């Protein structure tokens, strides 16, 4: 039953993607409420899925790679719902939907929904650490999307070749402001997530700690470079993409190694 909810949610994101592609092909690339509504609907079904799965497990649904991916997709949609309209970056939906769709479709297709039975009681610190870190990844994902939008817009301005999409993307300075705020939001959440990891009462594997601190340092360096005006906006945008790639790799590694030592 819960997987059906997820399939419906994935279809919602797919509809948003297909509509964007059709609009792009027709040369009419207009930001509207459609993307926001489609993502909103997808988000509701995601929430329902996570709620049912969490209720069945009796803990936060982050017990395997499948659930982690769905939680990540939910976090991206959540941050988009909070941030997209606030920054009037409605076109962000057109970029967010494909990412959420890919993450969710992969989770559904890949054989990664392996149940790990654990009789140990849920550890609130560990659940808090894991969920807050993944929500931080949602913010980093949105910063990555805003980075892609920035690079698309910047390239068009540099080369003097303006596609139809140029007229719908937000101004460069607005995009850069959004990237900065998303980075700060993600960094703050990630800091809380990393720190709370030390309160779980379980010994943390050294490679995971090193990798997590490595990602934290990478984002700290990006923010410091931006704050000191030593990094051009284009480089900040490119680093947001690289940073999210690194964060995803880390997430994969942590979950993979956690699966081999089932979560308590």
């Amino acid at each position, binding site marked *: 039953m819960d997987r059906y909810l997820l399939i419906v949610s994935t279809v919602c994101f797919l509809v948003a993607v297909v509509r964007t592609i059709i609009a792009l092909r027709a*040369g009419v690339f207009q930001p509207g409420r459609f993307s926001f509504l489609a993502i909103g609907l997808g988000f509701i079904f995601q929430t329902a899925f996570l709620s049912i799965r969490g209720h069945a497990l009796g803990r936060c649904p982050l017990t395997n790679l499948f659930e982690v991916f769905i939680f990540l997709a939910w976090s991206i949609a959540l941050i988009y719902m909070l941030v997209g309209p606030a920054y009037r970056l409605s076109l962000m939906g057109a970029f967010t939907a494909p990412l959420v769709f890919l993450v969710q479709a992969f989770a559904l297709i890949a054989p990664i929904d392996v149940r790990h039975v654990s009789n140990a009681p849920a550890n609130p610190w560990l659940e808090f650490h894991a969920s807050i870190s993944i929500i931080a990844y949602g913010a980093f994902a949105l910063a990555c999307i805003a980075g892609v939008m920035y690079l698309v817009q910047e390239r068009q301005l540099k080369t003097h070749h*303006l596609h139809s999409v140029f*007229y719908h993307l937000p101004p460069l*300075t*607005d995009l850069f402001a959004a990237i900065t705020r998303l980075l700060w939001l993600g960094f703050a959440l990630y800091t809380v997530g990393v720190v709370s990891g030390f309160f779980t009462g379980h010994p943390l594997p050294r490679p995971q700690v090193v990798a997590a601190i490595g990602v934290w340092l990478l984002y700290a360096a990006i923010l410091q470079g931006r704050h000191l*005006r030593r990094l*051009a*906006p284009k480089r900040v945008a490119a680093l947001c993409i690289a940073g999210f790639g690194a964060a995803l790799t880390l997430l994969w590694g942590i979950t993979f190694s956690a699966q081999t030592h089932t979560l308590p």
Partner: protein
Amino acid sequence: MNIFCVGLSHHTANVETRELFAGHGETECILRNAGCAEALLLTTCNRVEVYGASEKRVSTDDIARCLAREIEKDAHEYAPAFYRYEGEKCVQHLFRVASGLDSMVVGESEIFGQAKKAYESARASNVVGPYLHRLFQRAFRVAKQVRTHTEITRGLVSVGSVAVDLAQRIFGKLSDCRVLVLGAGEMSERTARALLSRGVTDLRVSNRSIDRAQELARVVGGRAISFDDWPAQCGEIDILITSTSSETPLLRPEDLAPMLHDRLDRPLFIIDIAVPRDVDPRVNEMEAVYLYDIDSLESVAEQSLALRRQQIAAAEAIIAEHVADFGEKMSLGLNRAQNPGHPAIGENSLRASEL
């Protein structure tokens, strides 16, 4: 009742001929006397058109005579310059005109306002009845739909407007932007004025002749900067408009690099409208610097036009749908009018149906 359109436009007549038939204050009344039950005159710099509704056919020559100002020749001699559309063709033509598809610059939206003004004026003179009322209300609806659902009005097609639009694509609101105008020529003045009209408040002017710089600064409400001091301004400003008559580039990457050191997070938009160019093209390769010379601005304008042309088919499809629907509704209305069991089409009932 037959709906028709008779007129001449930039497609069929030169400006001298259009001037001869530009109509006058009494034209609509004369047209009614000539047999038009309803008449509306639409005059713009590119077209003179009469839209009418009549029981009997009013000849093109008669309409040309109503439009003519003082002409030496017989109006009939200008007949080849006139076109005439009737019924469905007339409806389609008006929808195309109102949507900007028949304009010299495809997709321009000024015609929409001009058509609205012509309609309001005709309504105030009581020369418009239910047929033209319905026709024009639908035309405005179609034009709005075309504008919303296609990219026909997207992009700008003149060099000055392209420059201002690009500035907005980089900075968003221009009210916080600092602008330096280098060279007090006509083109830079025009571009500066366009920027001021979009909210720029901090404008600086520099010129080899400080008197000319002060004069332009006074006219546009900016402040004059000595020509020796302008390079130092590049660390502060957001937009540089340059159009001096210098034979060699005034700004090279090596001059600009030290000034950009502390402002890497703020873009610099340079509009070089001088020929020969004032800014070394290599400047465009620098981080966060966007250089547009006159050729690249014209290229962007051309791309906008090409984008608009691509959208013509989509706009024509919307129009065709409305032409068919309008034809159906009109015949339905006529049937009702002819059927004594139903009330005739009155202006109020039409207005209510359109609203």
